[in-house]
């Protein structure tokens, strides 16, 4: 098992900066998810860790050992590809045994180890088949078995569930998580699906535009997004972000008498940040809005969808902002009716529109 450390690692393809200089430490046994929209450099980062792509700058350490310029075969890392990359001309058994043969292990040792892994993944009945004949889920299991069989120092997985049917993804998600718990191996997992990331990660690395936006636990990136990108990207729908003018402890938002009183513990921070007054973005999750007739904020119901356990209200606060409120499923809000709400003071966030970064209470204190 291993610690992976990236120091100022970057990748340029000609003029294109695929990954900007990045620092990241992945601890021993951790399950880290690289999350971000397509094209943000997740795969490239993973391939640099594996050695399949050379870096154009920076250092990669594996357990303190500098592996930046080592061949992939010398890094002791396993890679699970999006489309599994099972060797089509070999049977499942040969596929799984293949990494062990590279190490020149004895026939008996290989056989024994293959059997162990096969049992762990419950794929004994597939051993003599060719990968082409297997279902997506079974191919996935075989790919995992091939990665596990060598007991590598770390696992890298590039959207391993991307090629599976939606209803099967959840099963495999649980299976990968279970394997991680059993094996407790350092894992770097790439996905663009934030639900998957939230469900699986010990820590999430949110990437966008070839850069790390935030590193944190799922709760941290959800509740304390570091910037507007993370606030929008995490959650479905993302965080409500309403722009307003801050002055004297009140944010004046566009729309009829939308004057939001900032919770007392935030006032000093905002005063300091804006030197008295300035433009601010107020952020809150749909579940942080509390519908009540005495609410200080107001809008008009634009649409509402019933989600079984709750109703998602889409509310027009003014001509620019449609916000989302998670409300009680039993209270009906017909379209077009006015609705008033408050924001849970524990769950409100503020962003500086000039930097797009979150304003932090901790720094201000």
């Amino acid at each position, binding site marked *: 098992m291993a610690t992976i450390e990236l120091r100022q690692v970057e990748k340029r393809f000609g003029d294109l900066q695929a990954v900007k200089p990045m620092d990241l430490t992945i601890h021993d046994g951790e399950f880290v998810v690289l999350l971000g929209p397509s094209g943000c450099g997740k795969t490239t980062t993973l391939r640099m860790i594996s050695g399949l792509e050379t870096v154009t700058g920076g250092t990669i350490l594996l357990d303190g050992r500098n592996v930046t310029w080592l061949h992939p075969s010398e890094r002791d890392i396993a890679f699970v590809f999006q489309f599994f990359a099972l*060797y*089509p001309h070999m049977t499942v058994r040969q596929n799984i045994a293949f990494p062990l043969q590279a190490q020149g292990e004895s026939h008996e040792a290989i056989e024994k180890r293959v059997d162990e892994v096969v049992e762990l993944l419950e794929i004994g009945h597939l051993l003599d088949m060719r990968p082409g004949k297997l279902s997506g889920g079974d191919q996935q299991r075989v790919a995992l078995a091939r990665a596990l069989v060598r007991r590598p120092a770390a696992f890298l997985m590039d959207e391993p569930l991307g090629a599976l049917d939606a209803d099967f993804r959840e099963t495999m998600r649980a299976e990968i998580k279970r394997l991680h718990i059993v094996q407790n191996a350092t894992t770097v997992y790439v996905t663009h699906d934030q639900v998957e990331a939230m469900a699986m990660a010990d820590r999430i690395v949110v990437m966008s535009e070839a850069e790390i936006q935030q590193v944190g636990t799922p709760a941290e990136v959800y509740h304390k997004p570091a910037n507007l990108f993370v606030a929008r990207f995490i959650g479905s729908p993302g965080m409500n972000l309403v722009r307003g003018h801050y002055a004297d402890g009140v944010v004046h938002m566009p729309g009829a008498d939308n004057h939001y009183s900032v919770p007392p513990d935030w006032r000093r921070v905002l005063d300091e940040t804006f030197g008295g007054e300035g433009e601010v973005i107020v952020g809150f999750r749909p579940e942080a809005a509390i519908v009540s007739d005495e609410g200080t904020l107001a809008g008009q119901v634009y649409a509402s969808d019933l989600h079984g356990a709750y109703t998602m209200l889409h509310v027009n606060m003014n001509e620019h902002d449609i916000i989302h409120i998670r409300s009680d499923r039993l209270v009906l809000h017909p379209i077009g009716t006015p609705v008033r709400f408050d924001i849970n003071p524990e769950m409100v966030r503020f962003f500086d529109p000039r930097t797009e970064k979150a304003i932090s209470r901790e720094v201000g204190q």
Partner: protein
Amino acid sequence: MASFVETGPQAPVTEAIRVDKVSPRSRLTRTVRALIVIIVTFIGLIPVFVMGITAFKSRADVVAVPPKLVFKPTLEGFVYLLTERAVLTQDRLAEAQAHIDELNWMQRIALENGQEITGPSDYVFRLKNSAIIAGVSTIVSVGLGLLAAYAFSRFDVPGKGDLLFFILSTRMLPAVVVTIPLFLMYRQLKLHDTHLGMILLYTVFNLSLSVWLLKGFIDEIPREYEEAALVDGYTRLQAFFKIVLPQALTGVAATTVFSLIFAWNEYAFALMLTSERARTAPPSIATMLGRGGIEWSAIAAGSLGFLIPVVIVTFALRRYLLRGVTFGAIRQ
């Protein structure tokens, strides 16, 4: 059809055919198409058929007008093709007939025409040259082509596009145009009439074909397969042999057959650039026309024997070829 409608299916229905979808026209076109294919095949095979029967005709039957379709087959043509013979004098003839039990079948056939075998003909020697030159040049051009195609497919070779075009351009001039300069060059380099010279020439000629063909096949193999092997502890070369090569076999087989057929059949260069030692079979079959009357049956036998290796190789590789000739367009 009527009985089907009344009684229902008589056997398990494995293929659903909606009766209203089977237009009589489409069935007719299918029949017509099959008929055309058969006719074209038949016409195409007539020369081969004539060659085949001519090879087994005796001297008298070959020249018979109208051509005989029914005749007594003989291996005379083959004996003439493969041996040098001398005419026997009367007393030597009698002596040979006395010892007929000790002669093999070839000698006996020669004897029937009053000849004795003095040794193998040039043709045997030239067939061997053909085999060596075609075989070696095919192996080398497919081997080199495979490595070059892999590099072009997987690595950022500087000037890749230009190089590939250059390789292709070696094929653009017709053979007749380059034979004279080649002839002069080969004389200077002492490559004229050598095996090495012919092997080099055919290798270079086939290389453009094999690089381009094989690159197409290798491009089709996702690089994730090799990358998986790389992270699993194999070197690039090992990954190439264990992962890429087995998946490129279709392409290798197709390229081998194409290269072999070219090198085996090549006539113009061989005629110009070889005379004795390295002369291949195709020009020597043609020169048989000239020596003391036309030995049609020997020529037919030579052509037939010359066809057989190509047929054997193509047949042996047919499993790969069926997919290979689609140039990698269809994968599994």
